[in-house]
């Protein structure tokens, strides 16, 4: 959002833009001192965590140090590799160098498009994840397929086909080199990345304990801890044991959960509702920490730095909530 200086109409437009802003994605820099956040206007903002967390932080420290337009459409997903920030939204994947970004140079290094280049309809990209085993990028999007991009060479290696509807989220199982994808068709597919084949297909909505037909069958979040998997969306957020492919705990959270994460012996989940839910592995909801945005889309824990080890959550607001202590909201960064 351009700095609002001067004209009243411009100010109003800016204010309106802020009002309608949603944050879809976040990623921490490899050094852990910066946070990149992508919104629905196609902008990426860079926040300095060290400034915001310092003892003499001011309101200005909670504003981005850099904002630039990365894509034409919303930035649905952001992911950081060792030195690059990868962003994707309306069908293009752009790569940015972190060091350059920190220097406020916003030139994208590379832009890719999965699938056939000459397609008229460019499907959006909803989720990306880096598979550290073979340094590849797993991409899932609107064309119902999972594409794998080799980061070394910058070319697409393979396409995993199987879903019948667009893909919401992807995750990797590091030990087994499996890829998990959750889709609008209600299935979670487990792919063997070496064989490029779907090994399992879990149709979550078919399990009575999880199913919530009033919300639908779509899977909006998938995350895995090698032996365990969390998935949720239309059906309730549930913890699955991957060896037996059966649900172990169901979390009684109202609304659909859009992102979930394992943290120590707890599960953090965000979705509908202005709070971050803390759940225990057994299935009970331990706490719901209130936040400002009415619903949250993304949740990230900064594991790259201990000094700035914060939890950030963004959603249907121009504010990104920062938690220094998981149990209460400390302050907000804002676009």
């Amino acid at each position: 959002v351009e700095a609002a200086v001067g004209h009243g109409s411009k100010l109003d437009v800016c204010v309106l833009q802020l009002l309608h802003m949603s944050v879809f994605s976040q990623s921490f820099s490899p050094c852990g001192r910066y946070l990149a956040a992508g919104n629905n206007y196609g902008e990426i903002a860079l926040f300095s965590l060290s400034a915001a967390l310092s003892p003499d932080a001011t309101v200005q420290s909670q504003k981005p140090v850099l904002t630039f337009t990365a894509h034409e459409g919303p930035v649905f997903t952001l992911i950081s590799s060792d030195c690059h920030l990868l962003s994707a939204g309306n069908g293009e994947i752009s790569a940015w160098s972190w060091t350059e970004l920190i220097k406020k140079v916003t030139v994208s290094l590379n832009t890719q498009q999965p699938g056939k280049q000459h397609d008229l309809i460019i499907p959006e990209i909803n989720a990306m994840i880096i598979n550290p085993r073979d340094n590849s990028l797993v991409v899932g999007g609107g064309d119902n397929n999972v594409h794998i991009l080799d980061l070394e060479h910058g070319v697409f290696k393979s396409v995993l086909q199987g879903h019948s509807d667009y893909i919401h989220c992807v995750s990797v199982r590091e030990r087994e080199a499996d890829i998990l994808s959750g889709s609008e068709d209600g299935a979670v597919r487990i792919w063997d990345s070496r064989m490029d084949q779907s090994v399992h297909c879990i149709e979550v909505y078919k399990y009575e304990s999880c199913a919530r037909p009033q919300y639908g069958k779509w899977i909006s979040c998938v995350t895995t801890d090698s032996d365990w998997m969390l998935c949720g969306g239309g059906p309730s957020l549930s913890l699955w044991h991957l060896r037996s492919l059966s649900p172990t705990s169901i979390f009684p959270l109202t609304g659909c959960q859009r992102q979930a994460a394992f943290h120590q012996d707890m599960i953090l989940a965000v979705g509908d509702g202005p709070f971050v839910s803390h759940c225990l592995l057994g299935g009970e909801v331990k706490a719901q920490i209130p936040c400002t945005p009415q619903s949250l889309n993304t949740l990230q824990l900064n594991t790259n730095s201990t000094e700035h080890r914060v939890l950030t959550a963004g959603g249907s607001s121009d504010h990104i909530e920062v938690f220094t202590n998981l149990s209460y909201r400390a302050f907000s960064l804002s676009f």
Partner: protein
Amino acid sequence: MSPSLFNFIDAKDKFTVRNRKNTEKKTTLDQALRGVLGDQIQKTSCDDYLSLIYLSIDAVTEGICSATTPFVLLGDVLDCLPLDQCDKIFSFVEENVSTWKSNSFYTAGKNYLLRMCNDLLRRLSKSQNTVFCGRIQLFLARLFPLSEKSGLNLQSQFNLDNITVFNKNEQESTLGQKHTEEKEDGMEVEEGEMGEDDSNFTFSSIPIDYNLYRKFWTLQDYFRNPVQCYEKFSWMTFLKYSDETLAVFKSYKLDDMQASKRKLEELRASGGEHVYFAKFLTSEKLMDLQLSDSNFRRHILLQYLILFQYLKGQVKFKSSSCVLNDDQTVWIEETTKLVYQLLREIPPDGDKFATMVEHILNTEDNWNGWKNEGCPSFVKERYSYDKPKRPTRKRQAPEDFLGKGPDRKIFMGNDELTRLWNLNQDNMEACKSDSREFMPSLDEFFAEAIEQADPANMVEDEYKVVRNPNYGWRALRLLSRRSPHFFQPTNQKFKSLADYLDSMVSKLAKELPDIPSEEIKTGEEDDDDNGDNLLKDSNDSPSMQSKMVTNNQMDEIAAKLGAEWKALASHLEMKAAELREIETDSEDVDMQAKLLLVAWQDREGAQATVDSLVNALNAAGFSQIADSLNEA
């Protein structure tokens, strides 16, 4: 106490024998004792000092030493000894509190004791010698009476020196490598502070919420000096910071019951002493840990409650400008509720704790009120026995009660009863009085019916009053009491009460002289005529029929009846009770007979005709008397 090698009695005798004034002798002994103690210090053990002091106490009791000496000696001892030995001496002081409170010692010694205890308290550290400090305080509480003003914070002053220091800017931050000179500058952070100048010890730094940190510890300044809250600007700051802090407490719920229970058990098992911190540890690194600690939260929330109690309460020494406005009062009310709710949520035993706190604060209100009244003594005064006696009221003489007074009224104690009693004392008599005679006479009652029966009036049957069942019933009753026609046997069969009454009415119409009526034609005239004829047969002159029996006639009959009056009585339908009454009333049979006739006349009233008497006489078998009556 060590066995006395010192022969006290002898010594005392020798002492008092000398020819000097007692006071001078006393001061000599005082000085001697002090001197001995001075020599003994550091050379002998505690027990010896104690025995010397015991000696001085006995001396005071005997009167050979001034009362202040034991206290002076104690003071000297405590001043010269290190703290660990002071403990022992102090135990001695505690044990003898009853001695100190006794009359001979109290006035002389209380100030010395107070000074001594205060000196000790100043020497001791509140966090390291907590128990000893407590013992001293308890001793003082036992020594002085409840309303001793030296123990009170009369003017409700605050300890303004109790400043909580925290890192206000980066220079003082302990995150850097700053060293000891910082500490001396006045960071009064006590033991437990992480060794930031210990370079060997590395620990991962964690992100710190400075915003909350600063706001949180700033609140302590308001708790230190509550009077600030009355100023508008400081109040706004206080409000803002409090709201934020309490919001954090609210969202950060302590519900880890498992962990805290385990911790408690560990503590109990290890037998560790409860640590008491006199001042808060305010390092920012501890903030997270402090927030997750139940006891810490309880401290802060309790501080809020105490502050609110002060702000709301009436304290005599508050200046008149210290008044809360409406907004402030409302905010305080809401926040108090929130604070209690938060207290209840803190495990373990949150509910119990909250109730306890509420109770204690209520008690504090009482103490505050007591102070406002100038600390009145709690000793109840005894009643003095020589209170002047109230003059007793002269009671009314009994005669007045019983109707012998000037009013001749009998007082029943109640106005209504008195009125009723004085109307008529005898209930039975009152019932018999004429005014209670409610039975109407025949002519009164039947006047209307007779008039209706008159064909000239042309009253239709259905409107006749005899058709009214109520009227009919009453008519029957009246007839049974007053009219002989009621008892006359008749062969007529009456279809209804109304018909019967019609016939009765016609009979009565003939009899009752007042009501002018023509001959009423009835279908039952034959019977009536028969009846009349029967009567006529027994009566020579019809005019005699309705004649009343006169007194003379009654006298004559009575004389003739004599003792046989009882036979007539049954025919006159006299009750047995009445007969008995007649018998008791008079011995003379003639009189009795007269009484019988009189009674009969009374009862019959208008029906006491010669006719009926003659019938009765005939029925009884006194036909001669009947005849004579007829002739008369």
